[in-house]
């Protein structure tokens, strides 16, 4: 079974790498969608059907499109003249590497404490269950998220609103 995991992981990581490394911004965005799709598949692999589909719907359907729009609106679609990287990118890379080292180290050394994945039976979670949970136990977070989304909506509109000429 973990064979599938390897493939999906490879796909996701490749997508992520591409998204970070490619020179052309739009290609980056497209690669990002690949990474998202890989993640969604990973979710499905983890029996998180709803989360997986939500991932596809929101990230590929909305966020990716949003990114693409932003790229086009900021004329970022044509490949930049100079280097695609900011000043002294190596430093950043090193730091990222350090982070990965720490995380990986932590994961590998805590395998013993982690719950053994193989034993736990596949949970059967229907969408109805999730709905019930959302409406009962997680109703407060739900409300808060709703509020946040509304605020974000309005905020985004106001921020990106095209202010009248002359008010510049």
């Amino acid at each position, binding site marked *: 079974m973990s064979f599938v995991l390897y493939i999906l992981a490879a796909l996701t990581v490749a997508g992520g790498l591409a998204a970070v490394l490619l020179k052309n911004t739009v290609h980056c965005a497209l690669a990002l969608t690949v990474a998202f799709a890989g993640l969604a598949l990973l979710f499905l692999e983890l029996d998180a059907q709803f989360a997986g589909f939500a991932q596809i719907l929101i990230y590929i359907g909305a966020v990716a499109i949003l990114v693409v729009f932003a790229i086009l609106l900021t004329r970022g679609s044509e490949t930049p003249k100079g280097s695609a990287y*900011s*000043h002294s990118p190596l*430093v*950043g890379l090193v*730091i990222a590497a*350090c*982070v990965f080292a*720490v995380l990986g*180290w*932590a994961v590998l050394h805590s395998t013993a404490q982690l719950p053994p994945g193989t034993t736990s039976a596949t949970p059967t979670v229907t969408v109805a269950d999730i709905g019930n949970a959302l409406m009962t136990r997680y109703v407060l977070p739900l409300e808060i998220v709703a509020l946040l989304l509304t605020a974000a909506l309005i905020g985004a509109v106001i921020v990106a609103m095209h202010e009248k000429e002359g008010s510049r």
Partner: protein
Amino acid sequence: MAGPLWLIPTVPIVASGVIALLKQPRRKLASNLAIGSMVFSLLLSLVAFAHVLSGWMHGALVRETSNFTWIHVGTTPLDLGWVLDPLSAVMLVMVTFVGLLIFIYSTGYMAHDENYTRFFCFLSLFAGAMLGVVIANSILLLFMCWELVGLTSYLLIGFWYLKPSAAAAAKKAFLTTRVGDVFFLLGIVWLFGQTGTLLFYHGGAGSMETHALTALLLERSAFGLSAATAIGLLIFAGAAGKSGQFPLHVWLPDAMEGPTPVSALIHAATMVAAGVYLIARVYPLMQAGMPAGGTTTALSVVTWVGAFTALFAALIAVAQNDIKRILAYSTVSQLGYMMAGLGVGGVAVGMFHLITHAFFKALLFMGAGSVIHGCHEEQDVRRMGGLRSRMPLTFGTYAVGMMALSGVPILFSGFWSKDGILEAAQHFRLSKGPFYMLVFGALLTAFYMTRQVSYVFFGSYRGHAHPHESPKSMTLPLAILAFFAVALGAIGTPAWPWFRGFLNSTPVAFGLSGFDEPGLLALMGTSTVVVFIGLGLGWWLYGNKSPHADQPDVLEAAAPPIWNALRDRLYIDEFYGATVIAFYWWWAKVADWLDRDIWGGAVAGVSWLFKLGARLNRFLDANVVDGTFDKGCEEISVGGGLLSRMQSGRVQTYLRLLALAVVLLAVILIWSSRA
């Protein structure tokens, strides 16, 4: 049925909320919203009324409550709730109906006001609050709505707040009623403390039910009054404040600065009646421990105050020249009648007069409004006259209202309701005083109304404007109200005391047997005679002759000092000015002086000392410290310059530092956990 009762007040309040959000130009929408909400409330109230009615038909006492706990303060729950019983049902219908008519009327009256939407916002807010007062089953809820009503009244009196007089009147009304409300609040707290419940009726556990009342009776307090009496009196103080009983009546005449529909709705029909309603609501408390046929301290106080107010205000009304002020004082006096009626005759008598009065007084005020509107904002009766022909519709309806108010026999509702009060007063045990006061008041009422009408409608026109009849939206409500001013009498005649039976939920039968009660016919005779004397007197003095605005009034010519006294409202305001206000002014002065001279002086002294110290310090600084200090400063600034290099303003630099810090933190944590 008691469940959805809360909708009745809520809908207008919501409507007002919506209206508050509307922009100025959406006038039509605003008024439609307000009226629509009112219609809704009216329909709902009618349903409620029908419910109660059917219950009564089946001979059952309908008193449905729906209570719930609002919040817990510590461990004691604060309960709110609403009650549906004959009292509230009748009141609901009256308030919503009159309110609706007045709303419609205002669309015509305020048509040219640029704050139209604000007006309707306040108006429907008021309606909602008033309805809340009516349905409240918890004295706390009642008090909240009570205050809300006060607030809206304040807002509406001061609606034209650019007029200084209006602003002042608003303030006056607010403060004066507040005096009463303080006592009211005390009463509430005491009641709550004694009975431990805020609810009036709660299936035997309410504060208006026998269990609590007996407890209250046993409880003794100052002056040997029972707690029941004391609380009753406190609550009565509140009621007096709202419905302008004698010591606290001063605000009501000034309240006429508000737009006329407001005067009609708030200061004639509904809000001022709230006090009476409150007394009716807590009537069990008032009459707790009443011996058979006797009375209680609280009730006798109510009676005396009421009767006195009735007479006193009627006297003042005789000598007023502002059309609305006359009506205002007559309102005060009628409220006195209601109070007296409550005091001597029980709920039904007082409430009946309240209802009829609500209709014909609203009618009169709106008529007055229509007159004012027609004469282009002229309010002095001496500058009117002869409007009989110019605005016939207004005249007809106004005449009906006037006759109802002065109690012209048989035909008009005012006669029956007032008659009931007089009859009850006649049987008042303690003294005949109230009875005579009330009778004399009745005479005066007839007199001053005749005076006003003949000033306004008869003789020849003495103003300079061109009076014209008002639009349909104003005259139509007048007509409707006029109809009711006549018709309502039918439900309270001794022949068929339907109203009384309904409120006391006892069956009634039609029959002339009601009349052969001893002395009843005689009483009706006297009151009739009295009324006609009043009318005749008025007509003889003022009828159809049109004195000039500057020439003195007939009575003034007769007895100047009395006239002046009456015209200046018996100097009550001046008296308050000389006592209460003067005291506050003086106290403010004192406080100011203390502040300025005593504390101020002390502060000044201290600061002077500090200044001295500072000078010394500066001398030391300048010559000793500086040398070394400056050096240090230079060092620091150099260091700062070095540090500021890092603030390149590049986001990613910060981001990197952040990440680095996280890594270091993690490493440290791991390390420490291992070691």
